């Protein structure tokens, strides 16, 4: 038998060793991954624009939901906040959504986590796109995408402030570093929103449409802060026919209007005076909340199914802000200024747009408040405003929570809880600065 030494000394060993070294060096382990985009490919003008377009889509996804209706996707801010408010009731069965509908939301809730994540993704994407446009854009001073991104970021702060408890952090990925933010109060979040809207308005490339968008956003944030006159001033130049839309399409499925999908699919229904305190959206027979009585129950086989027709098909676009909201802000400023008639005039002018009869003269301030918030609820139905308004009724108008939010027996079992806002999901505890909600105040 030959010795090992004689084997190793043969020329074939060198040839074979060289062959293996070559195939390794020649990239035998290199793979193609065509489905992904390397970050380095986006550090150029086109890449920055692609990020901005992506931020638009993510904003739409976070606000209006994922029309794929599959598990693991988000219902969207409008649907989830509307479910917690009195706009929707659950006519299907997932327990995570039922918790929200029943005002007993656990921090360990996939629906809650998804919307929190998607809203932050939309925020971060808009802010990152803005940075990229400034850094890699051809001429940042003439690029209206920058104020558009600032607007979108601003609205995500508004949604956080209106829907969540105090204590939402704002963190950031910076290179390989994760920069964790501290919990922020509702006021701090609203101030962040206002700063974004102000920056958008001040940007040299801002268009008239983007200025109006920023104005309504700022007015909404100021309203949430209780600065009613300033809010009215902010929206004063916004024409009543202004509307800024997040747009939807039939394809791909994620781009479909999820509000349409959820109600048309018998997953969510419209209640009438949910839990006693909710508004009577059905019996009002108001053209601003069009619906169809399906004459049967939803998929849970328990809840009567009423399908929303405001967004009649999967392609229906959803307002982010519009001129009607601007007028409603002005009306509230009138109310706060003690001019019930001024408020009523504005509201009746708006009602005339859809041929609704004028409102009666409210006998009391409380009646006037109810009138205003009812008008806001009907005009802004299913646009992500109602939960914030119900909280404001408690916070700014001194109403008791159990006179604003649904109470009593819950149709699918048990009773309504006492949550008036969404908690911060448990995943946020991976932020070392977060301890969850600072409080659960309205």
């Amino acid at each position, binding site marked *: *038998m030959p010795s090992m030494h004689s*084997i190793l000394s*043969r020329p*074939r*060993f060198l040839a*074979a*060793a*060289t*062959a*293996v070294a070559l195939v*390794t060096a020649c990239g*035998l382990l*290199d*793979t*193609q*991954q*065509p*489905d*992904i*985009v390397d*970050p380095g490919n986006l550090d150029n003008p086109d*890449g920055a624009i*692609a*990020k901005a*377009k992506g*931020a*638009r*889509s993510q904003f739409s996804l976070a606000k209006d939901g994922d029309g794929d209706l599959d*598990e693991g996707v988000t219902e969207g801010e409008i649907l989830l906040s509307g479910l917690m408010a009195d706009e929707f009731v659950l006519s299907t*069965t997932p*327990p995570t959504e*039922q918790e929200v509908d029943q005002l007993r939301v*656990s921090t360990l*809730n996939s629906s809650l986590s998804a919307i929190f994540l998607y809203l*932050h993704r939309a925020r*971060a*994407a808009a802010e990152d796109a803005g940075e990229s446009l400034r850094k890699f854009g051809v001429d940042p001073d003439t690029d209206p995408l920058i104020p558009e991104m600032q607007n979108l970021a601003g609205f995500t702060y508004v949604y956080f402030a209106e829907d969540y408890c105090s204590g*939402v952090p704002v*963190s950031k*990925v910076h290179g390989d570093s*994760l920069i964790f933010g501290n919990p922020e109060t509702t006021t701090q979040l609203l101030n962040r929103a206002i700063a974004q809207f102000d920056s958008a308005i001040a940007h040299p490339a801002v268009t008239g449409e983007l200025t109006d968008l920023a104005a309504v956003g700022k007015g909404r944030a100021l309203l949430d802060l209780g600065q009613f006159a300033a809010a009215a001033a902010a929206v004063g130049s916004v024409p009543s026919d202004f509307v800024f839309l997040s*747009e*939807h*399409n039939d394809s*791909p499925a994620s*781009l479909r209007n999820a509000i349409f*999908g959820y109600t048309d699919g*018998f997953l969510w229904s419209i209640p009438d005076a949910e839990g006693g305190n909710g508004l009577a959206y059905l019996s009002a027979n108001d053209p601003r909340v069009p619906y169809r009585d399906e004459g049967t129950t939803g*998929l849970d*086989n*328990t809840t009567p199914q009423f399908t929303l027709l405001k967004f009649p098909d999967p392609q229906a676009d959803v307002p982010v802000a519009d001129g009607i909201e601007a007028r409603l802000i002005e009306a509230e400023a009138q109310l706060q200024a003690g001019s019930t008639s001024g408020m009523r005039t504005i509201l009746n002018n708006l009602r005339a747009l859809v041929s609704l009869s004028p409102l009666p003269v409210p006998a009391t301030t409380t009646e006037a408040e109810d009138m205003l918030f009812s008008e806001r609820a009907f005009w802004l139905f299913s646009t992500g405003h109602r939960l914030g308004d119900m909280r404001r009724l408690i916070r700014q108008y001194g109403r008791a929570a159990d006179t604003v939010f649904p109470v009593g027996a819950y149709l*699918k*079992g*048990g009773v309504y809880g006492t949550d008036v806002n969404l908690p911060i999901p448990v*995943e*946020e*505890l*991976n*932020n070392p600065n*977060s301890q969850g909600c600072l409080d659960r105040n309205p």
Partner: protein
Amino acid sequence: MPQGFLRRTGALSLLLALAGLSSAAAQAGRISGQVSDQTGTPIAAARLLIVGTSYVETANGEGRYTFRNVTPAHYEIRVFAIGYQSKTDTVTVGSNETAALNFSLVSAPITLDEIVVTATGEQRKLEVANAVSTIDAATVAQESPITEFGNLISGRAPGVQVLKSAGTTGEGTRIRIRGSNSISLSNEPLFYVDGIRMESSATSSTLDVGGFGSGNGNNPSRINDLNPDDIESIEIVKGPAAATLYGIQASNGVVRITTKRGRSGRTRFNLFTELGAVTDNNTYPLNYNGRDTTATGVDYDGFCILQFELDGLCTQTSISVYSPLEDPATRPLKAGLRQVYGGNLSGGNEFMNYYVSGQYESEDGVFRLPKFEEDSVRKLLGSVPENQIRPNALTRVSVRANVGANLTSNSDIAVSAGYISSDARFVENDNSFLTITGSGEASGFPPDINRGWYYIPAELFAELATQGTERFTGGITHNWRPNNWLSTRATFGYDVVNRNDVQFFPTGQVADYLQNREGLRHDNRFQISQTSVDLGATARFALNPHMGSKTSVGAQFYRDLSTGTFATGIGLVPGSTTISNAATTESSEQTIESRTLGSYLEEEVSLRDRLFVTGAIRLDDNSAFGKNFNATVYPKFSASWLLSEEPFFHVGFLSTLRIRAAFGVSGQQPGTTDARRFFSPIAGKKTGVAETGVELTSLGNPNLKPERSREIEGGIDAALFNGRVSLELTVYNKKTTDLLLRRPLAGSLGSSSDQFFNLGEVRNRGVEIGLSTRLIDKPGLVWDLDLSGSFTSNKLVSLGNGVGTISVGFYQRHQEGYPLGGFWSRPLLGFNDANGDGIIDGTEVTLGDTAVFMGNALPTREFSLNSGVTIFHGRLRLGGQFDYRGGHVVDNSIENFRCTPVLNCRGLVDRKAPLEEQAKAIAAYTYGNSEFAFFEPGWFIKLREVSITYNAPDSWAHAFRADRLSITLSGRNLMTITDYSGVDPEVNAFGQDNFSTSDFESQPQVRYWLARVNVGF
């Protein structure tokens, strides 16, 4: 250093493959002879090896064997055969001579000495220091009710759990060897067929036919593509201690499948046919509907539960107790037909051998459209498609051709080629409004509405969900023995699956659910391939007269590639069956590729052929590792001591005793893009124009490396009482570190929801027992009894700093100090009918404040008792298997769901229901099924298999001009003993998910009655 090692060991394997080219065999001799039993009857398929060399041969049908190209010397030849004691004899071979050596073997019912296939090649089992389970698949397939591959190994290997997710025809299987050790990665073993690595995804589908998430319901597993009748044997390598040389991905164990080969001798034909019935003998729960025909306000008729009555909302006037699944008039479950027709031919001569087979298999699942509904559909539409009448079915054609050839006196080549073509049709199952089980168990409707269904079967069965599969698994292995001390092996393998998943909702004919009724079709096409190259060489040296050395080196390359396209059409015109011209279409594609390059070096030293000490090292690099991580090194050490061969060993009743111990490390690679930061395209629309942007999808982690599993195992193997009893006892301790953990990220970062890190540690411990006995061994009566079982303990030791509890499934958690995926829920502390009204209301139950650990989700104990009795001199053989699983709990989610929100469980409606049942029901209703769940002991004993085989007299066979004729009658899943109150504790609504487990609208296991005829020519 690692890369240098990789290159050097890889080079050495090639070197050894090339070495010896000049070692001409001019002076070589031959050894030939015959193996027979004590009566002189030839023993076919006996394995022979020349001790201390790499020569292994198989005796042909006449028991004859020949070793060629043997260097002149004095040799020990050892022979192994199932049912006989191994034997060693010596022979001297001269130059250009043929030395004759015949063997006469003594019968031994059970033997521990056999040859197994390892990563380095064929090896005597007693040299391998690990527990390796070997299954005689050829015999099992012929005599037992085997309807799919998973049946072959279920209950036949200690520590191996085969968890079938449901009884739906074509449904897949989870396989766990020594429990689960990975949180984020697969816990399924690797599969090799004839040395070719094969695609073995436990879930292989994009059909959304129930379950939780696409592809997570009743979907097929690729291992069931294998035709059991083509398999000769299966070897199961159980953990890292044994699987080190298989490299990354092997930490869950390895299943090596050897298909049948031809043997030299005349051509033999075998034909077989199998006919049988598939039946659903399960009893489904009845639906309780509280009726209130007096109501004038809110209509509670149908769901007037006791609590509503107490609250004054309604008055129960009666209770409907009914289930359309239990009403013979509406029950859509009828016996399905299973039929198999197959044949094979095999043979060969001194120079080549061949095995060619073909099989057609067809099985109708138990779902069958009720006759009156079929008539209604026919009346309405003129005809009823077959798929609507029988919505669950499987047809499969499989062909195999294995050819071996001796190219020269010292080299041979083996070609293995298998092809299957299958079409499977699925019904919706597991968590869907469109399941027949869910529609019947949890409709909420009393019988006078919709016949008690949520959706009627005709609507549900109109959906067509199919998977068409074309699969080729082929490879070529070249063995070359340039001299008597060196053998080399090179295997090239290619396994490719072309899969077409189609889900079609014909316009206007299906249930009015989401957009389905508008007409919808998904058509997703995939090609999934695995390319494997395996080079190896083994050199044997005699270090001195008592010590031998075996040095093995090898290098492997694997490429896994999956490409797919997804197409969807929504809004089809009535009658249209194509995506073309749908109102809305969308499409996308997907590519996933992974490559691995690895190499190993193993040294085994043997002392007096009794003590075998092995050390090995393996090195792997993979395309999925983070850019800051180069390669991983896995060591292995083991020792096997044949104590009974020692001169001092004199224990009369022990014919063989071996002590073994092994330590080894293996791992699992990250997912293809887990280490990379990347963006993905996202669709959008602005001012009416479609646009595409990008979104940050993954943060990546450049430091990502594979998981690392270290295992120590030890055990004994003993043959007692002249081979009448064998015992295999193994204990193991496996620790998995650097867990690839999908650590949730704070949402406020606005990035991906999670990021992979190497964190945490999982520990698995266990005991495995294999006991085989021949209780009676008389000419007219033989009784074999085999017990196989294991105890497994699994614990998540740590999750790593900063990682909190991870939730999975409905109520499952990965929580430190507890088993992976354990069940957690607020406990029902008690109940008290305080007011004595015989009704437990929501105020009379007490729940714990916080969720507590309720139990394991997967069995921690499994035992199987296999028994066979042969009477009338082998003419008749009776066989059976009892299968026990226990030590876990089952989440009876469907009963929970029936209580809330459906409101048709008995505990909520019937005041005569036991108070405990009422308490559980009202707790679910009051606290919601996200806080309170129904957990029940999951143990069961199933009479899994019964068979009776009659080997007909030769005269019968000769009447058909055949040599052999046998008839087997068998049954599967014939009886269940359990405390579980649901339909079947052996289901999973999450399909083959890694951890998530639940009984929710799942199709329970079904019963098979089969008749099989085998004819040999």
